[in-house]
Every structure is written in structure tokens, then in C-alpha cells.
């Protein structure tokens, strides 16, 4: 027990315990397994025994597109955590509400013929509907479920948001039924493979990536460049002081949820372009993965959330083929979710503050 290890400043408990030992073994094992998989894959890849180069690239692009969508959802988690200090577990359902409403409108435009005749106009209507629904859902959530709990211990609003998540999911299930519905198919010029820098990329994927990056850029400009954005950052840092400085805290927090809702709505359209299928359940798994992305990027860190999303999407897309397959695991492609959640566990074990550092208010650092 009497070690005087030169632990980093501020670190709690310098004495080595068996827990530390266990953690070390756990980390080393994780690194070895991943490294073994990757090396084996590299050897196989060079020998041409595994997926081809173009397949790998395809996986990467698919992963990036999906990751861009995770990133958009992750922004909502990240902002709420940054400002209010709790995980808004129901944010996945905010996304789901947008996706389902988007389907309703898409279906209507398809029936009226607008979808076929003027696809972009129809898509814009769908986008408006999805964004509107997601935003309203997010704002109502804040008003009804979270505002009364402001200042409560972190777990209380988390539990509340889990309840809200189940409620919303099953509300939609009750309203529209359990069936999975399919968005009408986008016109060919949208989905066709295109040649970009010598790579064959599907138009929808490119659209999604571009859409996400543009949204991200606008959001970043908004948060960093405008007065409202500054108010948000002030509220994130210290609500009481912000209020004393004349900032309307309630309004600013509502704005955080509005922005999160808008991003979730855009993500819903991304989902529609990538997968087409929607049901009441589409929010749950993407929600958890987007939270993972937010953690990977460092929670509270907006740029980090987007990069975290892209990273997670890519890893979960190529991970089964490049890490699990070489380890001899049968049917590794079933294990996409395993990779995603594995990333969550590993990031929190190795670097709980994320890859790019957390940006949290003083009271939320703990």
C-alpha cells in the first residue's frame, strides 16, 4: 500500500489496488485483441484473402455517412450535457419522432405526385416536417419533464429521460402502430453511384455527409459567433452567474433544446435517405450510438460530437471485417452493435473525457 507513485496532479487515490491492476489487464487485453485483429487483417488484405480494397472503401463511405447522422444526433446529447449536465436519454426519440413524421409527409407527397415531379421540393417539405416535429418534441420534453428538475442530482433527470424515452417510443407505437414503413424511393439521380475522385459513391451518402457538415458548420458559427451562442456558453459555464449577467436562462436552455431538435430532425432525413425504413423503434439504438459518439468526441464539445460520430460510424462499419473477422469470429457482420458498444466501453475506460476533451460548466465536472 505504501507506494508513492508520481500520479498525475489531482488524481484521486494513488495507491495501487487490485482494481487498478484489473483495469490495466483489461486495457492491455483490449489493445492486444484489437491489434491482433488489425494485423491479421492487414496481412490477409495484402495477400488478398479478405475483402477487396473497393469493398473496404465502400464500407468506409457507408460508415462515414451513417456516422454523419450519428454526429447530428450526438450534437443534441452533447449540447444538453454541456449546458444542463445530464444525459438526455430521450433524445433518440426526438430523432425518431422526426423520422416518423417525415415519413407521413413523404407518403403524402408521394400520393399527391409531388415526390416524383419535384423531388427536392418534396424533400424540403419532409425536412421541414421532421425538423419541426423533432424541435417541438424536444421543447416539450424540456418544459414538461426537465425544467422542474433543474438542479436535482444528475441521476434524477437521467431516470426521468429514460421514462420519457419509453413514453415517447410507445406513444408513437400506439399512434402509428408497430409496422415498419418505408419512405418512397428517391429518384435514381439521387441514389445512383457516382464517380468522385475515382471512387464510386452513392448520391444519398454524399448528400447525407454534406448535409451534416453544413449543419455542423452553421451550428458552430451560431454558437461561437452570435450573442445567443455566447449566452449558451455562459449558461453552460454557470447558470447563476449567467442569470446575474442578464441572460434569460430558461430561454437559453429552451434554445439548446431547439437546436438539438433541429439537428435531430436533419438526422431524421439523413436516416430516411440512408435506410428508408422507419418505425417507432428507430430512435433507440441510434440514440445510444449517438451518445457514444458524443462521449467519444468529448461531451459538451460540438466539433468533437461530429468527429466522434464520423469515427464511430466508420469503426462500426469496418470493425467487423477488420477486427472481428480476422479473430475467427463467425458471422462477424452480426456484431456491428457489439463494435459500437465496445467503442463506448473502451473510450470510457481509456479516456472518459473523450478524444477531444470535455467542455463542461464548472459545476458539472466531477
Amino acid at each position, binding site marked *: 500500500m*505504501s*507506494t508513492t507513485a508520481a500520479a498525475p496532479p489531482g488524481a*484521486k487515490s494513488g495507491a495501487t489496488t487490485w482494481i487498478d491492476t484489473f483495469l490495466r489487464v483489461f486495457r492491455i487485453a483490449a489493445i492486444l485483441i484489437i491489434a491482433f485483429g488489425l494485423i491479421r487483417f492487414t496481412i490477409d488484405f495484402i495477400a488478398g484473402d479478405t475483402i477487396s480494397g473497393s469493398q473496404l472503401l465502400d464500407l468506409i463511405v457507408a460508415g462515414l455517412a451513417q456516422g454523419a447522422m450519428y454526429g447530428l444526433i450526438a450534437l443534441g446529447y452533447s449540447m444538453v450535457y454541456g449546458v444542463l449536465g445530464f444525459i438526455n436519454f430521450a433524445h433518440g426519440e426526438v430523432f425518431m419522432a422526426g423520422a416518423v413524421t417525415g415519413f407521413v409527409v413523404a407518403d403524402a407527397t408521394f400520393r399527391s405526385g409531388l415526390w416524383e415531379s419535384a423531388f427536392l421540393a418534396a424533400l424540403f417539405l419532409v425536412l421541414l416536417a421532421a425538423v419541426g416535429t423533432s424541435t417541438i418534441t424536444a421543447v416539450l420534453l424540456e418544459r414538461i419533464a426537465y425544467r422542474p428538475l433543474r438542479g436535482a442530482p444528475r441521476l434524477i433527470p437521467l431516470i426521468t429521460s429514460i421514462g420519457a424515452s419509453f413514453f415517447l417510443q410507445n406513444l408513437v407505437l400506439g399512434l402509428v402502430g408497430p409496422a415498419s414503413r418505408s419512405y418512397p424511393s428517391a429518384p435514381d439521380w439521387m441514389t445512383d453511384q457516382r464517380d468522385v475522385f475515382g471512387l464510386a459513391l452513392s448520391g444519398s451518402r454524399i448528400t447525407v455527409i454534406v448535409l451534416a457538415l453544413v449543419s455542423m458548420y452553421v451550428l458552430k458559427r451560431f454558437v461561437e459567433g452570435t450573442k445567443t451562442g455566447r449566452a449558451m456558453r455562459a449558461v453552460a459555464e454557470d447558470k447563476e452567474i449567467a442569470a446575474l449577467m442578464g441572460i434569460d436562462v430558461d430561454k437559453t436552455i429552451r434554445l439548446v433544446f431547439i437546436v438539438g431538435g433541429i439537428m435531430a430532425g436533419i438526422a431524421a432525413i439523413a436516416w430516411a435517405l440512408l435506410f428508408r425504413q422507419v418505425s417507432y423503434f428507430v430512435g433507440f439504438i441510434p440514440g445510444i450510438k449517438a451518445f457514444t459518439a458524443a462521449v467519444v468526441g468529448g461531451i459538451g464539445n460540438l466539433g468533437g460530437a461530429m468527429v466522434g460520430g464520423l469515427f464511430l460510424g466508420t469503426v462500426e462499419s469496418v470493425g467487423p471485417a477488420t477486427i472481428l473477422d480476422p479473430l475467427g469470429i463467425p458471422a462477424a457482420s452480426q456484431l456491428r452493435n457489439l463494435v459500437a458498444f465496445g467503442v463506448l466501453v473502451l473510450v470510457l475506460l481509456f479516456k472518459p473525457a473523450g478524444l477531444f476533451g470535455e467542455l463542461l460548466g464548472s459545476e458539472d465536472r466531477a
Partner: protein
Amino acid sequence: MSTPILEVEQLAIAFGGLKAIDNVDLTVNEGEIVSIIGPNGAGKTTFFNCITGLLTPDSGRIVFEGTDIAGWSADAVTRQGLARTFQNVRLFPDLTILENVMVGRHGRTDKGLFSALFSTPAFRKEEQEIEEHAKKVLAFFGKRLVGYRFHQKATVLSYANRRRLEIARAMATEPRLICLDEPVAGMNPMETAELTGLIQKLRDDWGFTVVMIEHDMNVVGEVSDRVVVLDHGVKIAEGDYEDVSNDPNVIEAYLGRPAEDATHKAHTADELLHNREEA
């Protein structure tokens, strides 16, 4: 009376670029009451956090009864015999008063899962011992925390009683050395006088060595065998109260910045409410 119980050598810790504690030496002899004083932000609580294991110092030795405890976890330090209270009174609000103190016995007892499940005679004896010891410690504060109070939640207590309960909880860990972080802060003169007497009793009747951080100079002057002055993380003076209070460095530290000192005096209550923690 002159065996050293705690020897701190060249203790240093920095937060970012700020040197919160800068190579501080301190020796506390067994049976002493040592006060640590200094202006706000001098690093007093950080010093406590280092020696009680809540922070790991960057360098330096903390030798407690012959063992270097620098870098130990807080629970190990407490089991070694070094207990503390907190500046901003941190009780277990949802536990009863008696339970709060019984928790303090945790490190001094060892019955585990299976003894508890089978309620072995040894376990029952230990539980009884825990309860009796807790009641004995609470009785130290007269009749304020005993009787019907045992089964009340800690949240019902008045401010002064919370401070008392915190001391009781630290006493229950059977320390050799007890660190009190501003024990009389927020108390009225009557309560302060009473607690000052009790601090002396802690040493005389219970045999604890006491290190305390205190802003109330009357208390410091009355009970301290020795006073240590910290400023900006550096020890600037040490000696008995008379010497220290006439030391030009100390006077400068306090009076050289009259504005800060005045602010401090005016806002003691504020500061308490704000729960400022230097960590």
C-alpha cells in the same frame, strides 16, 4: 509530548500553472494542537486534501507515525489514523445522526458479507460495539445529539449541530490525528466558545492530536500550541500565537492586502454558503 506524529516534507502540488502548495514543511508532535492560518486562497484546504489523501501531491513526503502516506487513497489514510472534517460541512443527509457516526466506524471494523448474512455472534457484537462507540462519541457534545436525535435525519440539524456532528463522525474513526477545517465557522460567539473548549478536550480527554484551519483568531490564540501561516502555498511563518501575530511577514500577508482581508471578514457567512472548495 515531543514525538512527531506527522512530518510533512517539501510537499508540493500544482493545478495547471498555479502552485497551490509550494514545498511546505510541517511537523506536528503528538498531543499538539496546531492551527493553520492564512488568507483566503492560501492553500490551506488543499494542504488538508493532500495529507488526507483526497489529492495526490506532485512531490514531497507525508510521514504519519513513521509511514509515508503520500499518494495513499483517502480511505487508507483514514484507516491509518488520520481523520478530517470538511470546510463546507458534508454530512450524509439522508442517514440518521447515529448512522452518520456509525459510518465513521467502518474502517475500524471488519465483519464482511457472510458474517452479516448469518448474523454471527461476532458480527452482532461488532454492531453493538459500533453503536455504543457512536453514542459515546455523540455524547461528547452534551445532550444536543443524543436521545431522540439518534434516529433523526442529519438534514434536520441546525448549522452548528451539523458541524458538531461532522466532528463526531471524524472522532468515530478513532484517529490519532484529527484535521478540523474551520470548525467554528458560522457559529455564534456562545457556540464558538463552547466548541473551543471541546477542541481542547479532544486532545486532553480523547488523546487526539489536532490540526485545524481556522479564521477566528480568538479561537486560534486560545487553543493553539503552535500556529503555521500559509500564503500563496508557501509557509511564511511558524511559532506560537504571539510570535506569529507579530511577525512582519504575517502582518503583510493579512494587512498588506487590507482590501482582501476586509472582504474576508465581512463575508464569512457568504463564503460558507458558497461552499468554496479549493480543490
